[in-house]
């Protein structure tokens, strides 16, 4: 058998300017998404600092109430549509093709178009701060009738711009979803059946299916809202016979699955990272994978739990409570699987592992408050209070964002070719874990005591917990500094990374760091075993030893 190691070609390093143009390589697009998303994370975070600055005292004394309402609306909107969804799409772009052995996504140009829509609608949203009347101010939900009051009566209002931006975001996400789903279904390496696919790809497939099914409902609801706002229609206007609660159905039919679009990739990251840093296989891989799709199905039939106290009849409350409680089961299967993975493992408490462990603890806490929110009699009391705000920030910041950080530290060497600094990473983790808990735990007693959400002022008895929450928020603001320092300086001059610094098992770790533009190109290895084969001597692919040897040789001679 002859080995066909090609002569190393001396290519010029691709220029860094390619990150600023219309580039169709998924790895470039992935980084574009992630960097842009973090820019908006800083913007959204800055708005949060102002919000918590206002709320550190009971009176409305920092900014005018109209300004506060615009700020909290845009904080939520930016964090969701300009940070979380884009950063996850960025990770998908980096990880999906390399994990399944594909050279790129199924539709590279569509991929680039989907990315470039993000700065476009992002600009629309930022521009809305500067139009007469200010930005949208009715929360990221934009419930009518308050969202269509349009006090100045202008055609171009902050709310109108918001609706156009959200519609464009939907178009971008659907483009991405079509791409990710087609790629996963059609471009896996030889030998990689569905039950040899990494869990990250399972959860990505599940999440993107939810995008495809749910987003058009939001788009439809938003189009009708825009028409009510600007063209005098009556879909949601009671005076014309319309129904404001109809909007809530459309909105939440998408926005509930949207939270699974956010958390499923986090589940995928847990499932990928716990095995690596415990040196043990993922416990119950098949069940974990299938649970992702049980979550998809259930996630589509629970949306009314977001508006139990609105005008929905009793039978509907009971039905949706029942369905919502069921989701705890497949989620529990995953949580127990991760515990089973780390049990009797050989733990390495690296930065990614710390973020995963902290994220898991926060997630279980959020799951418990989630069950409370699903319970109708309790929800009637705490709906629209800070209890809900605490719950979802635990899930999003406490779990999903921490997983995103874990993923970035873990795959940074692969896609940049540099190692991040471990010490700074641990500092980042500590500040984040303490800051997040200090910020969001006090919100639960506030909600139980009856403090509504979205208020620009509150009764004095709520002051104590609000002060704690604001201190936590400021700590979170500080926590981002070691992260930015780390990423920027390691990317520029960190130690060079080998092809597999974590000694992990996966197709992406059989590529050089960073991988060439077409990944494996035409020489895709054949997969011959299940993923996460730690502790067994089975190779993942055919000719694995030769591949590894050649990679090591390449690194030694560069």
């Amino acid at each position, binding site marked *: 058998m002859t080995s066909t190691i090609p002569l190393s070609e001396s290519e010029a390093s691709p220029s860094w300017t390619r990150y600023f143009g219309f580039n169709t390589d998924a790895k470039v697009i992935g980084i574009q998404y992630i960097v842009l998303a973090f820019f908006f994370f800083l913007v959204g975070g800055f708005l949060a600092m102002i919000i918590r600055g206002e709320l550190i005292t009971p009176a409305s004394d920092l900014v005018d109430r109209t300004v506060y309402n615009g700020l909290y609306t845009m904080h939520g909107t930016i964090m969701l549509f300009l940070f979380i969804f884009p950063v996850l799409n960025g990770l998908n772009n980096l990880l999906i093709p390399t994990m399944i052995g594909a050279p790129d996504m199924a539709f590279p140009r569509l991929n680039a178009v989907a990315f470039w829509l993000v700065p476009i609608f992002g600009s629309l949203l930022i521009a809305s701060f500067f139009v007469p009347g200010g930005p949208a101010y009715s929360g990221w939900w934009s419930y009518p009738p308050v969202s269509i009051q349009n006090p100045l009566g202008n055609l171009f209002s902050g709310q109108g711009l918001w609706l156009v931006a959200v519609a464009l975001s939907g178009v971008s996400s659907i483009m991405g979803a*079509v791409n990710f789903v087609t790629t996963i279904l059609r471009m896996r390496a030889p030998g990689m059946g569905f039950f040899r696919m990494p869990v990250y790809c399972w959860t990505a497939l599940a999440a993107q299916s939810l995008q495809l099914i749910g*987003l058009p409902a939001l788009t439809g609801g938003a189009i009708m809202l825009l028409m009510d706002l600007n063209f005098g*229609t009556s879909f949601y206007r009671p005076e014309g016979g319309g129904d404001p609660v109809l909007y809530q159905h459309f909105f939440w039919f998408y926005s509930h699955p949207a939270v699974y679009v956010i958390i499923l990739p986090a589940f995928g990251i847990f499932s990928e990272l716990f095995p690596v840093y415990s040196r043990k296989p993922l416990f119950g891989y098949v069940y974990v994978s299938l649970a992702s799709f049980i979550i998809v199905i259930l996630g589509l039939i629970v949306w009314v739990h977001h508006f139990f106290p609105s005008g929905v009849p009793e039978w509907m409350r009971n039905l949706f409570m029942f369905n919502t409680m069921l989701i705890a089961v497949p989620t529990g299967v995953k949580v127990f699987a991760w515990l089973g993975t780390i049990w009797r493992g050989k733990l390495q408490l690296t930065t990614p592992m710390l973020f995963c462990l902290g994220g898991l603890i926060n997630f279980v806490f959020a799951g418990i408050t989630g069950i409370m929110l699903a319970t109708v009699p309790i929800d009637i009391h705490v709906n629209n209070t800070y209890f809900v705000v605490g719950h979802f920030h635990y899930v999003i910041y406490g779990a999903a964002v921490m997983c995103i950080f874990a993923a970035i530290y873990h795959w940074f060497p692969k896609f940049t070719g540099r190692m991040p600094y471990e010490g700074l990473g641990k500092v980042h983790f500590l500040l984040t874990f303490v800051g997040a808990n200090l910020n969001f735990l006090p919100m639960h007693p506030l909600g139980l005591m009856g403090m509504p959400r979205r208020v620009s002022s509150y009764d004095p008895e709520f002051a104590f917990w609000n002060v704690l929450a604001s201190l936590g928020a400021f700590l979170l603001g500080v926590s981002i500094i070691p992260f930015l320092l780390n990423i920027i300086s390691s990317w520029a001059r960190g130690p060079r990374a080998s092809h597999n610094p974590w000694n992990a098992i996966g197709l992406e770790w059989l590529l050089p760091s960073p991988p060439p*533009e077409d990944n494996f190109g035409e020489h895709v290895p054949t997969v011959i075993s299940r993923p996460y084969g730690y502790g067994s001597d089975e190779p993942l692919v055919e*000719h694995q030893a030769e591949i590894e040897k050649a990679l090591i040789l390449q690194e030694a001679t560069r």
Partner: protein
Amino acid sequence: MTSTPIPPPGQVVAHGEGQHASHNLTGFIIFLCSESVIFLAFFSGYAILRLSALNWLPAGVDGLEWHMPLINTVVLVSSSLTMVVAEHFKAKEKVWLFRAFWLLTMAMGAYFLYGQAVEWSGLKFSLTSGTFGSTFYLLTGFHGLHVATGILLMGLMLFKSFIPGNYSGGEEGVKATSLFWHFVDVIWIVLFMLLYVWRA
């Protein structure tokens, strides 16, 4: 210096044109399934508003005239048939017959749009006539946009059929366009039932 992948001995996987051809159709079908949900959202909104309305019809309106729309429906549905015939001729490589029936389909689609415009101009209610007007114009307008898009896509395919060698690399553009057209047709049938057949 970037590093190149080390090919495993003796293993070459083709990622040729043919495989990408099937990806395009897969992606387009997935997109169409997603697009159907937005129509489902509009349909369900219409149904809910209609069922819960105190007075559905605005003042001065007795209902919708259905004769002209029925003719438009027949024309549109038949255009799906002419499209199938066109594809049949294309499979038999009778390009000019393909183009003829393709153009006929486009003309029937254009007639449908013309009929829609005539109907709109004769109506006694507007977009702002309560939920009745809002839902009627939204549903028919959004559908009409899709018909117009379909005609544009067909025009593009017609133009491409004159480019030499266009079909040797894969003709999924025609398949995708025809799928889109049939989709638009099915949507119209549901719409016709909801708007015109469903009497108060």
